[in-house]
């Protein structure tokens, strides 16, 4: 069956609800899915943040000290570390007044990938190209 492309769209803000975090961790799990698939089969997710989903990914989060949980920032950095494509909607960052340089990177962890701030049309393209689309 080969590669199956997925678009995972995080559209809800982080922390109050669990679904937005689960969107990230489910995307990261692509890293180990091959143990359950036939040789040559792969799953390639694109992790996209749109709407209010862009609110909770700014750098400088302190979830571990304050609530004893892993921050969304750390999850996003882990996503980059496992070479996921992470797309953040440019129009929505502008809408909420979040500067693009507030987006975290994982250079300190040795990641090659960086967050891609893109117009919504690029996220639509990811949806078009995916076999399945999952909204979180």
């Amino acid at each position, binding site marked *: 069956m080969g590669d199956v492309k997925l678009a995972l769209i995080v559209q809800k803000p982080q922390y109050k609800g669990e679904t937005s975090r689960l969107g990230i961790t489910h995307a990261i799990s692509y890293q180990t899915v091959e143990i359950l698939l036939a040789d040559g089969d792969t799953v390639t997710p694109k992790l996209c943040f*749109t709407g209010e989903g862009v609110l909770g990914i700014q750098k400088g989060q302190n979830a571990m000290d304050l609530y004893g949980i892993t921050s969304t920032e750390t999850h996003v950095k882990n996503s980059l570390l496992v070479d996921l494509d992470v797309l953040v909607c440019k129009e929505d960052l502008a809408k909420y007044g979040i500067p693009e340089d507030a987006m975290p990177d994982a250079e300190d962890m040795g990641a090659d990938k960086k967050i891609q701030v893109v117009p919504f049309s690029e996220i639509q393209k990811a949806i078009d190209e*995916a076999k399945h689309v999952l909204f979180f």
Partner: protein
Amino acid sequence: MKLGVFVSDFKLTADTLDRLKADKLGIILVQNGVYHATTKENGKASSLLDKTSNLYALSEDIQIRGMKDSDVDKRVKVVNYGDVVDLIFNEFDKVAWL
């Protein structure tokens, strides 16, 4: 892309739905989403119903709320769970729950 979108809330998902583009868009109203098909806010039907001609509402979720299938806007086809399964497999190539 033929995209079937499940709308389960009355107000919360219009923003996302406004942005999605599909060659064929279907909207399947379930849970509180059925109010889009039955309720006229200030006398006006939901603008969601103008987005496509492929509109469906789940009969069970209409009836549980004390409404009748006859209360549904004429543009919306009333379906049951079995029909929803057929829509998923036969009418769309992707489905999304907003």
